[in-house]
C-alpha cells in the first residue's frame, strides 16, 4: 500500500511500486483527465504537477512520488494560475480534438508559475508537449494572454 496526496486528498493505493503514476490516477483513482499518449515521456499528454513542477506521469513510478503534492487537471482551476490558464484556453479556443490539452494546460501552468511573463523562446523551451491537431500557435497565444 502506497499513500499519495492528489488534489488535496490522501489516497491509499494498492499497486506495485513501479506502477506509473499515470495509471494510478486514471485506473485506480478514476481521474481520467490525465491522458495516456505514448507512455515514454515523449508527448506530454500525461503531464501533472508534482509540488508545482510539470512531470510526465507515465514515467513517474508510484514509489517515486513520496509525500509530494500532486495536482491534476481535475483541480487545475483551484490553482490561481491554472484558473487563468484555463480561461485563456477557452478565450483562444485552443482545443481541437482536445486530447493533448490537459497536458498542455498543466505544462503552461507550471511555466507561468516559474516564469510569469514568458517570452516566445521560454514557451518554445518549456512547452514540448505534442499536439497532433497542430494547436501550437494557439497554445502560445493563450499562454501570453494568461500572463497578462
Amino acid at each position, binding site marked *: 500500500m502506497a499513500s499519495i496526496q492528489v488534489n488535496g486528498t490522501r489516497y491509499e493505493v494498492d499497486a506495485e511500486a513501479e506502477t506509473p503514476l499515470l495509471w494510478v490516477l486514471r485506473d485506480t483513482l478514476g481521474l481520467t483527465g490525465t491522458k*495516456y499518449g505514448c507512455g515514454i515521456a515523449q508527448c506530454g499528454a500525461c503531464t501533472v504537477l508534482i509540488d508545482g513542477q510539470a512531470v510526465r506521469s507515465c514515467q513517474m513510478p508510484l514509489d517515486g512520488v513520496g509525500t509530494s503534492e500532486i495536482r491534476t487537471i481535475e483541480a487545475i482551476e483551484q490553482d490561481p494560475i491554472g484558473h487563468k490558464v484555463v480561461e485563456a*484556453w477557452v478565450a483562444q479556443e485552443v482545443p481541437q480534438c482536445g*486530447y493533448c490539452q490537459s497536458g498542455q494546460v498543466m505544462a503552461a501552468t507550471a511555466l507561468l508559475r516559474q516564469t510569469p511573463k514568458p517570452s516566445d523562446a521560454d514557451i518554445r523551451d518549456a*512547452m514540448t508537449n505534442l499536439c497532433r491537431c*497542430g494547436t501550437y500557435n494557439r497554445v502560445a497565444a493563450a499562454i501570453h494572454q494568461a500572463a497578462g
Partner: protein
Amino acid sequence: MLAKIGQSTALTIKPIEGIANLSRRGVLAGAASLVLGALLPAPPTRAQPVGPVKPGTRVPAFLVIGKDGSFKILSPFVEGGQGINTGMAQMIGEELDVDPARFAVECAPPGPDYAVINGLRMTGGSFSTRSSYMLMRRLGATARDLLMRAAATRLNVRPDSLATDDGQVVHAASGRRLAYGDLADDAMKLAPTEDVMLRDPATFRWLGKPVPRLDVRAKSTGKAIYAIDQKVEGMLYAAVQHAPHLGTEATAIANEAALKAMPGIHGVHRLPGAIAITANSWYRARKAAEAAEVAWSAPPANGFGAIAADYSSPRMLAALKASTAQAITAEKEGDAEAAFAKAAKVVEADYDAPYLAHGQLEPPSSIARFNADGSLELWLPNQMPELFQSVAAETAGLPQEKVILHSPMLGGFFGRHFVYGPGNPFQQAILLAKETGKPVKVLWSREEEFKRDALRPLSFSRFRGAIGADGKPTAIQVRTVGEGPLGRYFGVGANGGVDSSAVEGIVEKPYAIPNRAMEYVRFPHPVTIAFWRSVGHSMNDYFYEAFFDEMADAGKQDPFRLRMELLKDKPRHRQLLETVAAMSGGWKRGPYDAEGGKRARGVAMASPFGSETATIAEVSLDGAEIKVHDLWIAFDPGSIVNPAIVKSQVESAAALGLSATLFEELVYDGGLRQSHNFDDYPILSRASMPQVHVEIVESGAPMGGVGEPGLPGVPPAVVNAVAALTGRRIRSLPLSKAKFSS
C-alpha cells in the same frame, strides 16, 4: 540488388478477392455496396433509401427537448476536433431559434435516420457539414413549426399570430410565452409540415458567424470523455501483444504459467494475430503482455493481411517503379503524344511518398459487454457506426440489431477510425468478452498501435511534361502505380476502373495544359492501407504541384505567374492566387536576404473535397535542416458555417501536412515496421511550427469540405520553396531524408 526486383518475384500478392478481404471474417460486402455511391466524386443520383425512413427528416431522432429547458442533438457525426458538434448546433439552432450555446451534442446510435450522406453514414471525406447543411436547417425549421402549432392549439390562437424567441413561443398580442420544453410532447405528436420556410440568410444570427465551440471548456479542464476514459461495472482490462509480422499466429507462449501468476492477472488468451492478457488493471495486463514469450508462426507470402519476411518499403517502391503493367486511363484530353513529339523540351521526374501513420494522440481502445438480454454493447472510437455494428454482429454471431454501439468523442482521427480488419481493437474486445464472460476493455499501447495502425499508402507517380518553344507546358503525362483506400475497402474501380483515391490531386487539375494523359495501374499493397487526412491529395498534390514548378523552371517561367496564366479562364482560382499573394505581401520567390539568412518561397494550389486552396510557404536553411517560417493559405470552401472553426481546421491540416513534409515516414524492413512510438516516428512539434495565416474566401460556389483541404497545398509549397532556395528538387518525402548544407 533492387534492380532485380520485379513485381512478380519480390512482391507476389494474392489476387484481389474483393471487399471480403477487409476483415478476416469477410463481412463487409453488403456495407460496401451501400457505401460506394457516396464516396465517388460525383454522387450517383439514384436514391439509396434505407427502409421507410427518409434520413435527416424525423425530428425526434435528432432533437431531444427537455422539460427542464435542455436541448440535445443526436448527431449523425462524431466529434473529433473538427468542430462538427458546434456546427450542428448552429445549423439546427439557427432555424429552431435556440442559441447554439444551449445545446448538448452527442453522436447518435446506429439507425437509418442518420444515413445523411447519400444513404450512408460516416464522419469523413470532409462531408459532414456540406452533406447536412440544408437537411439540418430544415430539421430545425420543421421542429420550430411543430412547436408553434402546438402552442397555437394550447393558446387557442392562430399559428401566424405567434413568433419565437430563443427557445420560447411568443404570443405578442397577449404577451404570453411558452417554453419549448413545455410544448415538446405535444409538438412531437403532430404531423410535420412538408415544406417549412427557412430563414432568410440575411437574418442569420449564428450561421456563418464565429460561434464559440461548445467543447472548449470541457477540453481545457480534462472533462471531455473519450473512449479510453470509459469504464463499465466489473470490466477486465486487456492488453495485447501483436504478432510482429502481420498474418502470423501465436504457436506457443513459453512462460504462460509465470504470466498467470503475475499480480492481478485474470487470463492469458490467444486472438487472431495476437495474444492478450486480461487483468484487474491495464498496467498489470500490459506488463504481462510485454513479458509474454510468444513463438509465432513463420511469416507467409505477401497477401492481404499478410506481410512476408522480406517485405520492405524500398522494395515496394522499386516494384511500383518497375511495374510494366498495362495502365487504365484516368484522364485524357487532347493528344499528348503529338505534343511531346513537337516539344521544345521534355521534363521527366519520378515522385514518391512514404507510408504514414495516423498518430492521433488517443490510442485506440474498445469496451465490449454482453448484456443479460442477449445484446452486445460496445464503446469504441469510430467514424462509421453502422459498419462497425455490422462487423461486430458478425464477430459475435448476433443479429445486427442486437449490437448497441456508443461512439464517444475522438482524441483525433484523421481517417484512423474506419474498419481496417486487423487495424482495430473492437473485435479483440468482443472475443475476449465472450471468452471471459465479463465486460472487457482492450487498450492498445502506443507501441501496439504502431504495429497495427492502418497506413497512408506508400505512393508513386511518374511525370513527363512537354514544354513548347514559348516556355509554356503543352502536355503532361502521369503514370500512377499503387493502391488507394477507396479501392481496397469500398470496391471503387474494382471492375477495372480507376480508384479515385489513388489519383485525386493528379487528375482534374484546373490548369489550361491542353494535352493530358493520366493513367493508373492498380498495384495492391500487402499492408493495411488507410484513409489519412486528405487521402490521395495528401501526396498527389505534392507530386503534381512540385512537378509543375519543374515544368516552369524548364521553360524559364516564374511558377506563380505561370499558374496565373494557365488559370486565366478560372476566376475562382485566380482570385485565390491573388489573395494568397496579397496575404504574403506580394509574390516573391527569392532567394532573398532576411533576418538570419537567405529565404525563399514556393506556391501551390489544390482542389480537394470540393474546396480550393492556394498556399505559399517561406523557408530557410537552419544548419542542415529546412525551417518553415510562414504558411499563407487562401481557402475557398464556397460558403461556411463557422469562420473560427474553419480557420482552426485549416491551421490544423496545415500542421499535419507540414509534419508529413518534414518528418514522417513509416518504413518496413524485413517485413517489420521500423517505428514503434513517437521517439522513432517524429511528428511536428512546437519547435517546427510556423506561423500559419489563413484567409477564407467565400466564392459562393457549392459548399466544399473543410477538415482536410488545408493539407494538400502545404507539402508542394514547402518543397517548391526549398527548390527556390537550394536548387534541389525533393521528389521523395520526407525532407528529413535529404541532407542540405547551408
